[in-house]
């Protein structure tokens, strides 16, 4: 059982969301601060890139988790490491959609809203 597949399946989506969330937020702060007028930060373009990359990573992580889940089917009550791997794959498969939802919700909304005004 590939350890990389398992850990990517568990951690890939959370890491993708963290990066997209922090960078997305930072782009808006930069774009709407003084520096935004000085440097002309392309907030929407950067947000789109971060959101697309994040979403793609989250989807791949979900697929990875599903693969490990299927491969360890029935190992729920077995001795570790098989049962522990199966347990972690359930974790991975559950987090994927949640983080994907957050990535899409925040990224798409940020792009479609008017810049730099409080709504």
């Amino acid at each position, binding site marked *: 059982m590939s350890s990389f597949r398992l850990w990517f399946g568990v951690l890939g989506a959370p890491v993708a969301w963290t990066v997209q*969330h922090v960078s997305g*937020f930072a782009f*808006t702060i930069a774009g709407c601060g003084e520096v935004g007028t000085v440097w002309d930060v392309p907030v929407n373009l950067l947000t789109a890139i971060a959101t697309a990359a994040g979403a793609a990573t989250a989807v791949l992580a979900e697929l990875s988790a599903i693969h490990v889940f299927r491969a360890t089917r029935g190992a729920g009550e077995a001795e570790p*490491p098989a*049962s*522990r791997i199966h347990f972690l794959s359930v*974790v991975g498969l559950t987090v994927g959609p949640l983080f994907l939802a957050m990535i899409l919700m925040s990224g798409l909304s940020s792009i479609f809203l008017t810049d730099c005004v409080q709504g």
Partner: protein
Amino acid sequence: MATVATPAAQRHLDRLERIWAEREGLTGWLTTTDHKRIGLLYLFASLAFFAAGGVEALLIRTQLLVPNAGVLSPDAYNEVFTMHGVTMVFLFVIPISIGAFGNYLVPLMIGARDMAFPRMNALSFWLFLGSGLFMYVGLFLGNGPDAGWFDYVPLASKQFTPSSGIDFYALGLIFNGVSTTAASINFIVTIFKLRAPGMSLNRMPLFCYAFLAVSFALVFALPPLTAALSFLELDRRLGFHFYDVASGGDPLLWQHLFWIFGHPEVYIIILPAFGIATSIIPTFVRRKMVAFPLVALAEILVAFIGFGVWAHHMFAVGLATITTIYFAAASLIIVIPSGIQLFAWITTIFTGTPRFKTPLLFILGFIVFFIMGGLTGIMFAAIPFDQQTTDTYFVVAHFHFVIFGAAVFPILGGFYYWFPKVTGRMYHEGVGKLSFWLTFAGTAVTFFPMHIVGLLGMPRRQYTYPPDLGWSFLNFLESIGSYVLGAGLVLIVANLAVSLLRGERVGNDPWGGDTLEWSATSPPPAYNYPVIPRVTSPYAMWDRDDRQADARRLERGELTLERGHETPASTVLDAEWDEILEMPSHSWMPVLLAAALAAVFTMLLLGHWVTAGAFSAVAALVLFGWHMQEPQEA
């Protein structure tokens, strides 16, 4: 498990007793590194602070009993509500959850004999006590912090609050943060390394998942607070300009930094309660937890996603919507892990055979209040709604439902649940049930009307209100509720205090509990387990075969680890046995180091920078002395 030991078993028990004997008297308590004793020290200290915070709450409610009351002046009121918040969050709920419940129970639940770093555990307690006394000295000198528990600038800046109350707050919380960081590191390493052989991640009790999540959250959440407080002190004491606009600073920097800490903090407050609930429910409904992997995951997810929602406390400060939308998205999704847990708990209760004893009643109360507080929480994720209700009593209602109703109720239930284990006696069940109903009713009557009065426009942190706005009856009701709540809490303490002296004696496992601590005696011996348990599921006590195998090993002297202060260390993921560790025992270093650090913070408060530096050097020397004695030399 046999309650009378055979001669062979008794020899092993005697040897372990001798090796692990705790010193008597005051010296024993000052130098203890035993996690159970430290847990009790935390318990009593936090309860004392709970009483202080409770008095502060009753003062607030009495001042608001009627319009234009003269119980507290505006300045005194500001100090009282600030100290109420600071005390309840930093000096009561976190220390009692992590320091008392966590310290006492985590090693027992994982089948270990102590925490990974016993001396650092003691240090955490003494630092906590020091930080609490430090902040209260300020209050007693008439210089309590008075800018609210989140202490916004510019109000908290030197220009607008020149008195030293804010410095007591800032330095006191940094001091407190050192304690909590040390404790968190200790919990993570303990849970990672000291689990009984066989307790792989999928066999670890849910209580431990909650504590793992809490500890990781604290490790990452406390530094932003430390930074925020340090910047504040640098601005106030040395004239720096982090937060003032005229010189290029930004007051919103404080808000961001505080809430990057503050939001995870509130999940940190509630996670131990989730852990306690997931321990009590299976025992009292005699059924394993539904969807175990999802509940374990949900506990970690709440902590993790909680780092991404902080600006929902800032929806009304003027941030662009393209910024705040990130936080609205995360604040909506974070409901899902909480929802998973609620559905799991409720399904487990409905499909089990409940025994409605006092601990379970408190958990049912917790579920009711958590649903209410959670629902109002989701409402805040909608930015327009939040902008209308921010800084009104609607917020006060929400957070008291989740902090008091949802975080404290399991603590109260936990007192009742583990009281027999810690004391060897049973509390009075009838009085227990009465104390639950009083507390439940008091909580509902105190905090529910706050939703209404908040929607009617009453702002928070107001020392009084005029009689013609329609808020009077609701405030009166809330204050009466708070007295009922106070009575309920007093009844709990009285029940436990009297039962401590006169309660019926019980054996190891009066409840039919599911986790390992119920296999130890009540109270457990200093060494916790004579035989290191072998574990094959998260419900170790319900695996009768495994526990009988432990008893047979005691006869044979197998896995008794009695050559010294020994406990096993395992691999992180699958708990394969890796080595045997020798643990330190009694030491003066923790209390000495805490005293040195208290001196450092006091000198910083007084502005004696060089003396503070000198005491830092003393602290460094104590730390060196600490490491002079290696565990095997003890």
